[in-house]
C-alpha cells in the first residue's frame, strides 16, 4: 500500500490554476524524484501537501488517512516532514534550538534523535550554539534536513536542496539523504539537477505546467529521449 498518495490534486493562487489533476504515490522505503523546470508547480505541490496552500479539490492521503486541507499541525503529526525551498531556518535561533523546534509535535526522546542527527552531520555539532542565520549555505541545508528529521517522519519531502550549493556539498548531502532512506524513511525529492536525482531515486515523475506528463522507473527515464532533450541537454 502506498504511504503517501495524491489523487487528482488541483490547487492555485487566486484565479490561477497551478496544479492540474496531479496524481502520484510514494511507497514505503522508496526515494521518488519529482522533476520539472522553473514554474512547473513543484513547490506549490509540496506546499499543498503540507497544508500551506489550499487544495481546490483532490485528495492527500497519508497512511490511509485523508489529510487534504487539514491544518499543517495535523499533517506534520501524521508523519510528514518537510525541508522547504530556501531552507527557512529560524535565523535568530541557535542550531540546537532549530532542531528542538523540529521536534515540537513529537517531544519524546529528543536527546537521542539530536545525537543521531549530529552523527550524520558532525559539522552541525561543531556549530550547535551558533545562530542558524550565520551558517553557510551547506550548513543551513544540513540544519534544515535535521530539523525535519526531528519529528521522526515516515516520509521526508525535500524541496530543491541543491540550490546554490557547491557540488561537493551536494554530493555529501546526497549521501546523507540515502542514509536516511536506508533507515526506513521514504523520500520525495523535488529537484532541478535531474541527473543527480534520477541516479539516487527508484521512480520519478516529471511535471510540466502543473500536470504530470511522464512517470516511470528512474533507470528508464535516464534513457528517455524526451528527458534527455529537455533536461540533460543531450
Amino acid at each position: 500500500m502506498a504511504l503517501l498518495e495524491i489523487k487528482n490534486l488541483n490547487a492555485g493562487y487566486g484565479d490561477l490554476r497551478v496544479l492540474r489533476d496531479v496524481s502520484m504515490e510514494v511507497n514505503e522505503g522508496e526515494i521518488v524524484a519529482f522533476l520539472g523546470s522553473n514554474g512547473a508547480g513543484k513547490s506549490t505541490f509540496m506546499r499543498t501537501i503540507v497544508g500551506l496552500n489550499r487544495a481546490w479539490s483532490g485528495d492527500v492521503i497519508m497512511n490511509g488517512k485523508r489529510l487534504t486541507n487539514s491544518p499543517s499541525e495535523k499533517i506534520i503529526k501524521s508523519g510528514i516532514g518537510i525541508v522547504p525551498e530556501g531552507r527557512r531556518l529560524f535565523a535568530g535561533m541557535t542550531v540546537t534550538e532549530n532542531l528542538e523546534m523540529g521536534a515540537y509535535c513529537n517531544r519524546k526522546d529528543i536527546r537521542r534523535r539530536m545525537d543521531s542527527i549530529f552523527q550524520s552531520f558532525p559539522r552541525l555539532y561543531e556549530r550547535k550554539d551558533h545562530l542558524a542565520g550565520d551558517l553557510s549555505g551547506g550548513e543551513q541545508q544540513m540544519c534544515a534536513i535535521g530539523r525535519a528529521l526531528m519529528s521522526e517522519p515516515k516520509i521526508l519531502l525535500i524541496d530543491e536542496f541543491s540550490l546554490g550549493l557547491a557540488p561537493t556539498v551536494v554530493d555529501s548531502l546526497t549521501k546523507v539523504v540515502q542514509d536516511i532512506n536506508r533507515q526506513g524513511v521514504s523520500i520525495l525529492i523535488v529537484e532541478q539537477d535531474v541527473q543527480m536525482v534520477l541516479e539516487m531515486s527508484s521512480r520519478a515523475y516529471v511535471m510540466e505546467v502543473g500536470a504530470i506528463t511522464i512517470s516511470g522507473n528512474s533507470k528508464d527515464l535516464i534513457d528517455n529521449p524526451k528527458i534527455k532533450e529537455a533536461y540533460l541537454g543531450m
Partner: protein
Amino acid sequence: MIILQILINGLLLGAFYALIGIGFSLVWGVTNIINLSHGAIALLGAYLTFFLFQTFRLDPFLSIPVSFIAMFSFGYLLQRYLMNFVVKAQIFMLLILTFGLEIFLVNFMTTFFSADFRSVTPSYAGNSLVLGSIVIPYIRLAVFSICVIIAVAMALFLDKTWPGKAIKATSLDIEASMMSGINPAKIYALTFALGSGLAGVSGTLLTLTQAFSPSIAGGLTLRAFIVSILGGLGRIEGALIGGLLLGVLETFSSYLIGESYKNAIAFGLMVLVLIVKPSGLMGRKYYAEVKH
C-alpha cells in the same frame, strides 16, 4: 543628593514603564499588531484591583494574579475571536481596530466606573525607607522588584519553555513554524493573552503608585510604545532597559526643564534611537524591527 534622589525616583518609575512596555513590545514583535488599546487594558486591571480593594479589602499586591488571569483570558478571547480575522490585513487596518477598541474600553470605563480619579491606599502606604536624605517609599520599592522579577521570568519563559520558544519561532518565520507543526493562530492568541495579562498586572501596580482615571489610557499606551522602540521589538531585556531609561529621563527632565516638556523629550529620544539604531538599543540580528 537631590540628583541621587531623582535618579532613584526615575528608576522606580522606569521599572513600571518597563512592565507596561514588555507586553506591548512582545505583541508588536511577534504578531505585528501595534495594540493601541494596551493602556486601556492595563486600566481594566487597575479598576479590577480598585474594586477588589474597595469591596473585599483585598490587598492590591494579592490581586496581581487575579488581574493577570482576568486580563490574560480577556486578551486570549480578543485575539482568537476578533484580531485573528484581520491579522493578515494591512497594518493600518489593525491600527484602526485596536484604536477603536481603545475608544470603546475608555468609554466603557468612563460610563461604568466614572471619570473620577481613583486611588488605592493600603494602611502601609505612607511607610518609607529613609537612608540619610534619600527617601524610598516601600511600596515603590516593592513595585520595582515585582516589575524586574516579572521581566526576568518572561525572558526565561521565552528562552526555556516550549510555548516560549514556539512564540520566538513564529515571530522569526511563520511558515517555517507551521512546517514544524506549530499552529500560529494558537501562538498569536497566547502572545496577545500574555501581553494583556502583563498589562493587567501593570494596571494593578499603577493603583499603588498614582491616582488613575480612564483618561490616562492613552498616556500609558504612549509610554509602552516608546519603551518598545527604545528597547527593540519583542525584546524583554530591551523593554527593561528602555523602561528604566525613559523613567530616568522623564524625572530628570521634569526637574531640570519642567514637567510640561517631558513628553517632548521622551519622543525626542525615541526619534534619536530610530535614526541611530532602528532595531532598538537591544535589538538583535534576525528579529523584528520597526520597518519604515
